[in-house]
């Protein structure tokens, strides 16, 4: 009887198990193994190189560029999207006419696929007739090609990410704000506590768990969201928007250097793990959980 229950249990789990193993765990393990071998080419089989692929990275200027770009991209998009989403949440965390319309407007970018968002922003950035250029021309400024210039392309791409993410994070902040009892605000008002002081001394500490959750997500997304790079810049111009994940894609599926791509992937996963765990340990002391 008992063993039959076990058979049922395993049968029930089997479909999910098969897919998880086949598409997540097995590829992860083979990626790690592949990263220690050379890429098989023609009749030449893959050979063990140890840390050869990792050594190659240090001398690879595009890899270094991608790492720097990813760092800049993360340093911009993470704080900016968190700050913007918190500001938007504070803005719509009250009742006035049209507040639900405003909430919906803030949330809309989240619903759109990133590919579609990227196309919309291409129109914004389009030199000559794009939205931004039309505004610039109206004020008598010269036309600008933000996506086409190496010194602005990365920031132009980062802006799209912030725009896309802020609405999603806003929902979490809004939910957190709504759990703060009204009576705290009233008690503070009687003590003569201004809005800024209340925000800094009460609101901010109380939404800290949400901020931590959102920031972990923002970190992951900073390395994960590259769809718009495909549409807008393809990593260019002159590798100005080459991000680590996009470089992995290029190496693996354009140049078919799969072993090197596997090594790059391991680096990406290592970075994400370290940052993610670090965030929890660092923030844990400052987070007040109920």
């Amino acid at each position: 009887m008992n063993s039959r229950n076990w058979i049922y249990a395993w049968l029930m789990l089997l479909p999910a198990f098969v897919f998880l193993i086949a598409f997540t765990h097995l590829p992860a393990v083979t990626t790690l193994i592949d990263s220690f071998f050379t890429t098989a080419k023609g009749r030449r089989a893959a050979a063990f190189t140890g840390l050869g692929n990792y050594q190659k990275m240090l001398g690879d200027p595009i890899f270094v560029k991608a790492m720097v770009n990813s760092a800049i991209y993360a340093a911009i998009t993470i704080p900016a999207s968190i700050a913007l989403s918190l500001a938007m949440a504070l803005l719509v965390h009250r009742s006035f006419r049209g507040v639900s319309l405003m909430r919906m407007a803030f949330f809309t970018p989240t619903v759109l696929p990133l590919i579609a968002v990227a196309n919309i922003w291409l129109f914004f950035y389009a030199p000559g007739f794009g939205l931004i250029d039309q505004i610039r021309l109206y004020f008598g400024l010269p036309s600008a090609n933000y996506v086409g210039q190496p010194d602005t392309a990365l920031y132009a791409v980062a802006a799209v990410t912030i725009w896309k993410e802020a609405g999603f994070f806003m929902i979490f902040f809004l939910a957190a704000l709504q759990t703060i009892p009204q009576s705290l605000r009233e008690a503070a008002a009687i003590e003569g506590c201004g809005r800024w002081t209340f925000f800094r001394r009460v609101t901010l500490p109380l939404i800290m768990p949400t901020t931590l959750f959102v920031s972990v997500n923002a970190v992951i997304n900073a390395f994960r969201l590259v769809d718009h790079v495909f549409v807008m810049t393809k990593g260019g111009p002159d590798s100005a928007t080459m991000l680590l994940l996009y470089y992995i894609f290029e190496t693996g599926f354009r140049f078919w250097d799969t072993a090197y791509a596997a090594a790059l992937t391991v680096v990406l996963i290592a970075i994400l793990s370290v940052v993610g765990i670090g965030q929890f340990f660092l923030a844990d002391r400052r987070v007040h959980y109920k």
Partner: protein
Amino acid sequence: MQTSPSQIQIENVSRLFGQTAALDNVSVSLDAGDFSVLLGPSGCGKSTLLRLIAGLDRQTSGAIRIGGTDVGDLPPSARDLSMVFQSYALFPHLSVAENILFGLKVRRVSKAERLQRLNQVAAMMGLSALLARKPSELSGGQQQRVALARAVISERPICLMDEPLSNLDAKLRADMRVELRAIQQKLGLTVVYVTHDQIEAMTMADRIIVMSAGRIEQVGTPEEVYARPATVFTAGFIGTPPMNLFPGRLFAGQEGLKGGAGEGHLIGLRPEDLSVAARGPEAELRGVEYLGADRLVSARLGDTDFIMRMPASAAPPPARFALGWAEGHESIFDAATGTRLTQFDHPTASQPKKDLTHETA
């Protein structure tokens, strides 16, 4: 008249929520140094009135004066008052000490003075050993004390309290009643206290403001409100069990009633003022509840059910008995309007010269 800096005057105040009036043209004056209790059932407007005094809400019409100054346009912090909330409103991420000091810090009181006042208040409230704890590590009663300490440390002359004891168990509530009253007396606070619990009102109040449906039914000392309810509502709200109300015709022609009382009136008698007598209207026994010291006798007179309280040492009444009452203790109300008819009151030594019971109706 000279107004003390902490006298609160409510003048013709109304508060409408859409079409419904939470407060309907209310006027009352709360004296400085008094423990005033706003008493009434849920939805009577007592909390609304408190929030208007605090400045957390704005009246639709009328004026509120504190110490003679119209505070209508002043924010809560400029009204020189403190408040204790029903939920305590403690900041969950701050320690007890930080919670108590929150207001002083916001107002930039010097660190030395903060510490000195904290030690003093913590000692008074018995919180000295708990200062480092978070609110979630305290019992309900301790949280209550922290909320109270936060109000006391502000050293503001007026303290508003919104059902502060309603989240405590019965034993603790009884202790805190005594303690609250002692603190108020010691510090000479002007307290405005909202409750629906008449025991809290009776035990702590200098003056009770009985409210119902957005209006003030009666303003008076606990004794006045109990012995001489101004309206049928107050008579039925104050006292457990409340005052019995008999149609006047049942007593028409009985001795002991002041001349003219009877038809068209309601006669109110407290359970303890009723007794078994030799002569009187005939009542029918329906049941007896034994409470230890007392018996509560349920009976019926005509078609009116009533309750009579008698000492447990006395024998329960027979199935049919003549109803007697303590003369001079009856309250006569107009049956149509429900208001007390003072011309039938018996003068008593304790009765104040000026009748305060009809300041507002």
